[in-house]
């Protein structure tokens, strides 16, 4: 099981577990506030935007070109932005902390 911690805009910290699918789906299943996943994960809606804790950036890795393009003009973009629907839930990201973009 991979553990992932979400920090919502009201500063609640919620740790959830999963082993398949993508991080957006995991967040939606667990009703994480602020992650809607409107487009179902096709990289179109940015309602799954998270800021990765800088210490975890290496683990998570940089976005693909397409994802980076969509983030480039996002209002809430930071150096640690990812669209969580493009992050697979695997052992590689066990323990990471993701701040829901506000």
């Amino acid at each position: 099981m991979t553990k992932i911690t979400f920090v919502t805009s009201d500063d609640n910290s919620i740790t959830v577990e999963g082993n398949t699918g993508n991080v957006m789906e995991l967040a939606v299943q667990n009703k994480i506030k602020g992650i809607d996943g409107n487009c179902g994960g096709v990289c179109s809606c940015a309602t799954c935007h998270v800021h990765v804790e800088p210490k975890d950036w290496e683990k998570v890795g940089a976005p693909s070109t397409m994802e980076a393009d969509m983030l480039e003009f996002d209002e809430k973009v930071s150096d640690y932005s990812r669209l969580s629907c493009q992050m697979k839930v695997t052992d590689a990201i066990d323990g990471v902390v993701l701040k829901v973009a506000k």
Partner: protein
Amino acid sequence: MMEKSAISDPFEKARLEKGVGEMDDQNDPVTMVLGHKDVRKCAHNWKTYQSGAEPGRIVIPSEVNIRDIRQIPFEVDPPMHGEYRALVEQWFKRPLEADYQAALEKQIGALVDEVLTKDSVEVIKEFSLILQSRALTLLFNVPFSESETWISWGTHVFRSEGNALDGDKANILYNYIDNEIEKSIQNPGKDLYSVLLASEVNGRKLTKEEVKGVVVLTFSGGRDTIINAVTNSIAYFSEHPKSLDKLRKEPELINFAIEELIRYFSPLTQMGRVATEDTQVCEHAIKAGTRIGLNWVSANRDASVFENANEVVLDRKINPHVAFGFGTHNCLGATHARQILKVLIKTLIKKVNSIEILDAKENIETLGEFKRKVGFDSINVKFN
């Protein structure tokens, strides 16, 4: 022969060669921004490309001559835009609730059962308009019977039979809305009007004018777009029975199919912005006070982003389309729209074997030198 459901891309050459296209609109010309990246960039840059211009002006064709009311939050820029949007954001997520979905399934199931009994169905008037109007009662949280009034207005709330903007027609809608707002003031309930009337921005109640601005937008933004998406989907599935089969066997692909159909149809062609300073797009000068058009349709066929952009790839996994807009003003009704398409597809899978197109008349819009097929003026089919 070209399939009846196919929609080609008239912008490719201009997009590749210039990045922009020119069109006139009632002597208020528009420079259409065509590339995916440029469209996103301009949509993002609300300081230079504003929405809060004269009411009606960012709509193409312009509605300045037929309306004074400002649509909210659509014709408002940040930071006020965010204040208004926060008021309605939760309300527009209600389509995700189980009750809402169940009600939609019931509505669409009954409508499909009905058209299955007919020899010929004109999809726009006898299917899509009805489906859209009934579904909208859920978003407004008003009685189902209101949909009968909305259906009686016909397909265009702002346009008469030709393509000309029609002020009288718009007045029918405005008078209706004034009336409904008065009713909700007298008798507050759980409908959208009442919720808005009780809302506050910056520590004060919304004015009637503001309530009206939100309501008008909810009516007009969700009408032609949904009718277009539903009608084009029916045409597509009639010519691609295998696609319907595929979704029947692999329902987990339905979500991808919805996004792809919306990309391919792009029911809203473009939305305007007014430049607040002299600037440029793709080395093309844009003068302060003139209009650009964020051409979602063209962006959604940009080959640098979408492989086989002119084909419907039903299970396209990465699909960063901008059919619902991009950034600040992205579509508030998208949750409702997606839910409608999801329920529609599930219902077709369950109840319909095939759809036969009997005859169809295309609807072509002219944007300067470009002619774009939007969908249909009428399309008769037989549901089997």
